[in-house]
């Protein structure tokens, strides 16, 4: 027996073209490719099957990510969302997010997905600077990005944009301007991602060949500070390492990942986390990627919780300490190193704990690896 899933993730593994930094599970296919229809058919079956098994009865948040969900086109998206609304209670209380790319988001699609229950759009803008977009290998330009936000706003109140920093050729001014443009465009949520360079991507190869500079962590740190400053002044609060929201617009689905809520993933490479009080298992493409006992699980909850500004409560730490008594000493040690603080019954990361999160999380994970 395991606890009911509360979050559902649907992975869409298609894009118009792959970006130069991308290492996600996606591939470029032509519009209307047979693979898209085959995928939609499979997904419809998967959703119905999950529904019949009772996996969707307690779902509180849905997230369609990718890839580029909007690239599926109206017809395939309609099939999937319609099936979803038949298989679960896709009411307004359910946060239903969808990722979108500026170039594949049009008025028709906005209206269709809204009608079918999607209530949050996350637009992959990355930058409002055409030069930077060119370097990233994005298919859209800044104008298209602004227009996409406008179109989204015709139906959606809850619109998020992703912005990237630390891109070679990007200046601090360019990044700051992008952040300000996002604020001015009236979005309710912004995610700030420092560029990561992965092997096997065009960027990875360019860095390996010395054609592109390696990541400059100092520079990325200053970008993250710039974002914090501009967004803070504009009334956003940073609720996680990379996530900023106006009050009431934090992404509930993502918070589920950081608070140990069980989730179901459908589609290729989508991760599923199944658990009860004594065991937690994560699976991806039918492979078990983690199998944790109660001790590891409770310590992991503390670790993941420290990604968020709210941190973790004394109760959660006490719960984990029952099985991992050394945890409090470790947290005290981290506090003395300036990575977290303890106040008002909660352990919270400091700014430094955010920027040097691997030290913070690594030390906690070490308690029950």
């Amino acid at each position: 027996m395991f606890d009911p899933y509360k979050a559902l993730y649907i992975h869409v593994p298609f894009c118009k073209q792959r970006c130069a930094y991308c290492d996600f599970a996606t591939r470029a296919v032509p519009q209307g490719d047979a693979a898209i229809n085959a995928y939609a058919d499979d997904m419809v079956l998967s959703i119905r099957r999950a529904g019949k098994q009772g996996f969707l009865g307690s779902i509180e948040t849905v997230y369609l990510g990718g890839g580029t969900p909007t690239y599926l086109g109206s017809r395939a998206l309609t099939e999937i969302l319609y099936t979803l609304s038949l298989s679960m209670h896709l009411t307004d209380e359910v946060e239903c997010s969808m990722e979108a790319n500026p170039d594949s988001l049009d008025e028709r699609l906005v209206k269709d997905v809204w009608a079918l229950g999607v209530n949050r759009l996350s637009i992959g803008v990355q930058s409002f600077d055409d030069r930077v977009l060119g370097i990233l290998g994005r298919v859209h330009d800044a104008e298209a990005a602004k227009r996409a936000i406008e179109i989204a706003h015709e139906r959606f109140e809850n619109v998020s944009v992703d912005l990237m920093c630390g891109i070679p050729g990007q200046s601090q001014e360019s990044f700051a301007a992008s952040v300000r443009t996002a604020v001015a465009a009236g979005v309710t949520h912004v995610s700030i991602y420092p560029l990561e360079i992965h092997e096997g991507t065009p960027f990875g190869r360019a860095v390996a060949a010395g054609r592109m500079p390696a990541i400059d962590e100092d520079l990325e740190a200053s970008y993250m500070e710039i974002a914090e400053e501009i967004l803070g002044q504009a009334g956003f609060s940073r609720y996680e390492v990379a996530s900023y929201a106006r009050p009431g617009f934090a992404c509930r689905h993502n918070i589920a990942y950081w608070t140990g809520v069980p989730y179901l993933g459908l589609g290729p490479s989508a991760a599923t986390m199944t658990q009860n009080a004594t065991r937690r298992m994560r699976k991806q493409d039918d492979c078990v990627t983690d199998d944790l006992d109660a001790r590891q699980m409770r310590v992991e909850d503390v670790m993941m919780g420290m990604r968020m500004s709210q941190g973790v409560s004394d109760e959660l730490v006490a719960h984990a300490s029952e099985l991992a008594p050394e945890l409090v000493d470790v947290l005290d040690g981290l506090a003395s190193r300036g990575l977290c603080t303890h106040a008002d019954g909660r352990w919270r990361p400091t700014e430094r704990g955010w920027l040097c999160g691997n030290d913070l999380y690594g030390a906690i994970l070490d308690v029950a690896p």
Partner: protein
Amino acid sequence: MKTADPTHIRNFSIIAHIDHGKSTISDRILEMTGTVAERDMQAQLLDSMDIERERGITIKSQAVRVDYTADDGEVYHFNLIDTPGHVDFTYEVSRSLAACEGAVLVVDATQGVEAQTVANAMMAMNANLEIIPLINKIDLPSAEPERVRAEIEDALAIPADDAILASGKTGAGIHDLLEAIVYDIPAPQGDPAAPLRALIFDSYFDAYRGVVALVRIVDGELHKGERVRLMATGQEHLVEEVGVRRPKEIPCESLTVGEVGYLVTGLKDPAQVKVGDTVTTVEHGVKEPLPGYREAKPMVYTGLYPIDSDQYPDLRDALDKLSLNDPALLYEPETSHALGFGFRVGFLGLLHMEVVKERLEREFGLDLLATAPSVEYHVYKTNGEMLSLHSPQDMPDPGEIEHIEEPYLKAKILIPPDYVGAVMDLTVARRGTFVTMNYLSQTTVEMIWELPLSELILDYFDKLKSNTKGYASLDYEFDGYKPSKLVKLDILLSGKPIDALSFIVHKDKAYDRGKVLCEKLKEIIPRQLFEVPIQAAVGGRVLARQTVKAKRKDVLAKCYGGDISRKRKLLEKQKQGKKRMKSIGNVEVPQEAFMAILKVDE
């Protein structure tokens, strides 16, 4: 098994510069004489350790009895003594040679005469051995046997008209070699009726029988059941077993004059069986041992520390075990504020050190941290005492020091004439004193230098090789202690002196070394959550400083559903990386930091 007729015994070594193919020639001899069936043939059979085989070097001497039916129809017993091919083991080589009447001098047909060719040939000549020159690797397209033949004659004054042209790889020339061994190498002399004198030229440890000594009978006979005395230590023991190695050990009743074999006395402590010692009988024994014995003396010292302090007992056991087969390996416990419990270990040289460290890590599963190698300094104190200093940590306060002496070497360098200038520049910069220079041939110059050992164990040899495009070869011998203006250079991390990073350096070099080392450490020490100042200081005076800036960002921003498993793995990997580092105070210091001094470019 009956004892051999001395007139049909031939005892010989194969000597060569490293990599000239000594071990493959040995293997071919074993194969061609049918000593080892072809199916049991493993490349480089006599190199029994994995590391020996991998690195293509011989560390331990080996002796094998081979029966050869010569073209004259007679059966000859060959004792082939394979010797270590590295300058660290010169003493072992000299003892092995003392057990022989002849030597096969292997010279690479592409490389020609090199420093150890000269050194080994000299040693063989000093031991009055008959030398058979052999030009190896003639199958290679770049082989120049005629040039090499001329070099052997010019540089070594060994007639090389009849030098054997051979290939250890194809087996060409091996038959000629076997015949030459029969006809050119004299049969052993010695008096079978005289009191026993047997030379120990190597030993190894067997878990069941204790120490097994490899011996050459110089005079008399050695019988099973007899009581013998090891003359250097005065120990008396019963001969439990004698025999010959072919290469399997075959026991026999006795060994007679001229023979090479093994001896088991039940002795458990390898330190009691010393290479170069003489075995004689307790009754009617000789009074005078064979000449040439000396104690194996470490030249290079390093601190070995387990990275995980729980492995300290394992390290001790491993050193105990290794030293059973390696009496030259000396060690004593040492503690360091920075590194905890470990051992100060003495080695014959740098290769010996590397090999031992590698064996400890590989064969015993230890993760070790080695501090920069040091030499034995003699510190004369104002109170008249002399301190043998193996570790910079033990350096007394400057006020207590009258003067310090350091070990010097006589180094022999062979190079083509074009590189004389390059070697001059390098060696003078390393405090070398030029002694003399000889043209051995038109293409080979021999330079003799006096050089502090401490300079050699830095990267002198690497630098010598690179400054001469790989042409230089080097041989050296210990040349005594000389006074030197030496100081202890301390390295401070975050203001605290790190004992394991301190080292002893010539006063005039302290500033440069300190500066470069600080720069090097700045590259090696990863950025931490806080700033780490690095300082080099002598007697509290800071000579150089660098700072490792605090890291500002180390986090992956994206962490959603599928990322969590990946992230766990990443954090675990990061932790494995940290395990390879030593936490000193709160600074994580990678292992390379302790060896950084060796990589200091000037």
